[in-house]
């Protein structure tokens, strides 16, 4: 197929409306949506889950399934209406002219087919190339996406690659026939931050190299800032603001965009002095949208009788480049008014030591033969290596690290789901590292509780919310009668700011944020002293994240709980934690007060981690540090320092010490410890990764 030259907009979406038809009703998913993508341009599509951003992408691919239908408007690709094309024409275009990259790399690759064969299929089908040529082309593209040893990769199956490598292959596949338009639907959400940074760099670089236009769908404003030229903010099925990155980030003209920026933890936000401002209320369900402005009920600038009168059109913002807003009042609002931070709290003062961990180790023995475990060689997975720290009352200690760093294993040992290999965990004056949960007394169990990551998984789907909280009260032996427990359950619902009627609801009737609140209520049912929060907000939408984080902080202030906050999101860690502990491959590589860890000198891994986190602020300048390769397997850790395989400072240490010897823990300032061979002088020369431009 010959690609014709075309210099108009690559993609032109005009007043697009898409609905899904269920057996009950028609559900409008996208309404009156317009966007255009020029050649070589990258356009971001930002919004919370359920706002219709993925539906737009599926609409472009004309792949809406049985229930979905385009009910108005048009989608033009290079001037041709995609809606008018036959199935055969669409097949020609998909994969060759428009390519799509999905969120889950494993789900996009055929697990039964070798990588090479899957890649070769694309040019063989679309360009009619021969096998040899196709193979050469596959080899070329795999080299382009910077995978080591391309020939070996082509000859392997998808499961033999890591998540980051798989996503690179998916990108390679999308680029095989040099498409004019690349649609990326949350391409890095399933990946770790350092891997994400590398993939994002790659996408940007390849976009420039091949001149591909991109439609980048994401919920992460920081990521969009790094990758796109323009963006379109969506809310509840409508585009509410479009414009260039600079205009929208610095001179936003829609209350939703403003509220969104105020709810994400940017550098400078502080839980006591400058707390985040959550957007009040909930995202409306598609069939319960309010009349007039969809954002009206949650908007601080709402005017009754005007904003809820009728449909609101997109209006151009005068004096900017293609900047539009769907707000009636955008010219009246003072966008530069300093924002009212709300309640300001005095910083909490840490009290006495609640938890003391001393040289804790957890090793797993993996038998070579699962059926007859006693025979054959066993391999040891060192999940946790000599962890030592103290946590005080009403203190927030963040545990940071990417998947596989051992943070979840540590949580399991602390909770008593596993027992420690060696070392000590002291809860007040009680040794608990070798007491499995069945042997712990009710008091111990109820004082160490956990909030889980996935809100859709944290509640039992077939039990009412009230019943689940009451069960926790029963098991912690709180309240003598059913009536007492019920009363206490109602008070817990009040505590997490849920209406009492929710006691009768089933979990599926709740939104993600509400479920997470129930999870928090359940964790605090027995008056927990230590709460382990395992990425409690990472699966939630940004506007809800702030509310749930605030709630956690508030309960912590009241109950003087010690919060162990496990996360990979450094923005939120910087915002809410008092101290930070960075883990890599089971080792604590750096620990200190939040300010110490976020300012140089860093451990080289912390430095890379900080650089990788996308920050949604145009005034922030970051140094790009992209880590090579993947995290080594914990079954087969590298000799010496665990980070030496990816460290960019390794050359600064003489005698190959990094490869030979595990670095000792050094205290470089009061309460700031680091596990690194770098000399004090080199550490002192380190520069800050994140610089906020002076304003």
């Amino acid at each position: 197929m010959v690609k014709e030259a075309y210099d108009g907009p690559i993609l032109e979406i005009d007043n697009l409306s898409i609905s899904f038809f269920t057996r009950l009703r028609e559900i409008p998913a996208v309404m009156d949506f317009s966007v255009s993508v020029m050649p070589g341009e990258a356009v971001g599509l930002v919004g919370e889950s359920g706002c219709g951003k993925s539906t737009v992408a599926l609409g472009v691919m004309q792949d809406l399934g049985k229930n979905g239908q385009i009910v108005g408007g048009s989608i033009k690709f290079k001037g041709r209406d995609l809606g008018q094309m036959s199935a055969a024409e669409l097949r020609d275009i998909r994969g060759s002219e428009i390519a799509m990259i999905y969120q889950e790399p494993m789900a996009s690759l055929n697990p039964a087919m070798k990588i090479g064969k899957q890649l070769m299929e694309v040019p063989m089908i679309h360009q009619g190339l021969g096998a040899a040529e196709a193979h050469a082309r596959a080899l070329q593209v795999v080299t382009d996406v910077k995978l080591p040893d391309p020939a070996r990769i082509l000859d392997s199956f998808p499961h033999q690659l890591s998540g980051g490598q798989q996503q690179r292959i998916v990108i390679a596949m999308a680029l095989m026939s040099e498409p004019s338009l690349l649609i990326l639907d949350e391409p890095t959400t399933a990946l770790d931050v350092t891997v994400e940074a590398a993939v994002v760099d790659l996408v940007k670089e390849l976009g420039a190299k091949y001149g591909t236009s991109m439609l980048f769908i994401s919920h992460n404003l920081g990521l969009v800032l790094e990758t796109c030229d323009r963006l379109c903010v969506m809310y509840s099925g409508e585009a509410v603001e479009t414009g260039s990155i600079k205009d929208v980030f610095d001179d936003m003209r829609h209350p939703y965009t403003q509220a969104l920026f105020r709810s994400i933890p940017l550098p400078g936000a502080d839980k006591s002095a400058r707390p985040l401002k959550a957007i009040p209320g909930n995202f409306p369900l598609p069939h319960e949208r309010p009349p007039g402005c969809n954002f009206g009920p949650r908007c601080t600038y709402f005017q009754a009788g005007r904003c809820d009168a009728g449909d609101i059109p997109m209006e151009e913002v005068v004096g900017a480049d293609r900047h539009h807003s769907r707000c009636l009042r955008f010219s009246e609002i003072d966008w530069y008014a300093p924002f009212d931070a709300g309640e300001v709290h005095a910083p909490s003062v840490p009290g006495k030591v609640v938890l003391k961990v001393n040289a804790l180790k957890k090793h797993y023995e993996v038998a070579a033969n699962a059926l007859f475990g006693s025979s054959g060689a066993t391999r040891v997975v060192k999940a946790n290596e000599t962890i030592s720290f103290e946590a005080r009352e009403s203190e927030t200690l963040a545990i940071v690290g990417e998947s596989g760093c051992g943070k979840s294993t540590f949580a399991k040992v602390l909770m008593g789901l596993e027992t420690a290999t060696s070392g000590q965990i002291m809860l007040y004056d009680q040794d608990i590292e070798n007491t499995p949960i069945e042997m712990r007394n009710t008091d111990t169990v109820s004082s160490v509780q956990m909030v889980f990551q996935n809100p859709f998984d944290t509640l039992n789907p077939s039990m009412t919310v009230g019943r689940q909280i009451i069960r926790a009260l029963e098991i912690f032996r709180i309240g003598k009668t059913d009536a007492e427990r019920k009363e206490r359950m109602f008070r817990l619902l009040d505590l997490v700011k849920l209406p009492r009627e929710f006691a009768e609801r089933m979990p599926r009737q709740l939104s993600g944020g509400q479920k997470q609140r129930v999870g928090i209520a359940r964790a605090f049912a027995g008056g927990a002293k230590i709460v382990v929060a395992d990425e409690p907000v990472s699966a939630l939408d940004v506007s809800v994240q702030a509310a749930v984080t605030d709630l956690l902080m508030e309960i912590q202030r009241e109950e003087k709980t010690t919060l162990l906050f496990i996360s990979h999101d450094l923005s939120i860690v910087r915002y809410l934690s008092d101290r930070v502990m960075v883990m890599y491959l089971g080792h604590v590589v750096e620990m200190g007060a939040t300010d110490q860890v976020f300012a140089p000198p860093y451990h080289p891994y912390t430095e890379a981690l900080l650089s990788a986190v996308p920050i949604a602020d145009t005034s922030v300048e970051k140094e790009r540090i992209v880590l090579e390769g993947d995290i080594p397997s914990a079954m087969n850790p590298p000799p010496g320092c665990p980070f030496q395989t990816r460290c960019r400072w390794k050359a600064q240490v003489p005698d190959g010490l990094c490869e030979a010897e595990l670095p000792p823990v050094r205290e470089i300032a009061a309460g700031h410890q680091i596990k690194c061979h770098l000399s004090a002088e080199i550490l002192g020369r380190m520069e800050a990764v994140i610089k906020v431009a002076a304003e």
Partner: protein
Amino acid sequence: MDPLSTSQIALRILAQFLPVWIALVALFVVSIRYKRRLGLYGKLFDSTIGMIGFGLVMFWVFTGVFGAMDLIVTHDPLAQLSGMKNKKPGTPLPSPEEGEYAWYLLGGDNLARDVFSRMVKGAWIVVQIAPLATLFAFMVGITLGLPAGYYGGRLDTVLSFLANLILAFPVILLFYLLVTPEIVATGVPQYMAVVLFVFPLVFFGVLIHSRYRAQPQRNRTMLAVVLVPLFLAYMSLINTPGSKIDFWPLDVFDVPGGILVVFVSVVFVNAPTVFRIVRGLAMDIKTRDYVAAAQTRGEGPWYIMLWEILPNARGPLIVDFCLRIGYTTILLGTLGFFGLGLPPESPDWGSTINEGRKLLSIYLHPALPPAFALLSLVLGLNLLADGLREESLRD
């Protein structure tokens, strides 16, 4: 009187089923009107396949129930009327008495009994035994499958091996062995009953205890309320005068030895398959966060298995339950066909097909109605399972 024509036979059969039609129409009208409030059951009425299946199944359920109430049957299924041997469908009785139905609607069998009435009565036997036996098989499968899937490891290896062993044993041979008088005399089927029927007790005991263990007072009451009647029923069930197990004084009822063997064999061959399904589901669900949440608040393993895992595995289990009743129906037919378990004159479908088979080349009509009945019930159950599966996946 003249023999009935084909259309007359059809009309009269339809008229005989009048109570069934009324019940079916009433059920469908009510269900369709309130389908939005009835959960998964209501959703079934959005699927044509599901409705057809449900209609077929309920037709035979109502037929069984009304047949047992002597509403549909035209004659005593065991009565032999002289002159009606192997007569064609629609043959009038030679000398009908006052108030007696004047025709054999589907003819007579080789012992001059009414084929139509026997078919209707046969439905009752199936409707009674098949769901109950399947339920027992599920109790056994669930009670063993949950720990196998939840704990994994060596327990799982051992239990799975046993399940495979049973599944590998030829079913018909097993049945023959179980009903062989020498083996019955040793008490083996009874001992198997002792083991298999104890599972519902274990199941309910653990279910209640794990739920109320934090409240000892209520725990004791609930356990007593549920377990005492169950225990009495269990003892009456396994205790049969004059057999190996005959010591229990409070023997309230006796189950005929044949039926007991049927139950034992059905449970024995179905439980391993249920075990496998439950084990797989448990392995999947135990990785969920709500299971971890239960573990971290110190719940016991049985609470997690029965109250956190089992309710969330119910979707696939309900579908499998429907399918499995179908298999059990066929199994009952097979047992009847070989004359195993049920008494020889019993009107169950398997036995009647077997009797009809002997004269199949001369007289076709005695074997066809029960065969058709069996086919339509199993088809209905399979369609119902399909409909449920389809509807539970949609939203």
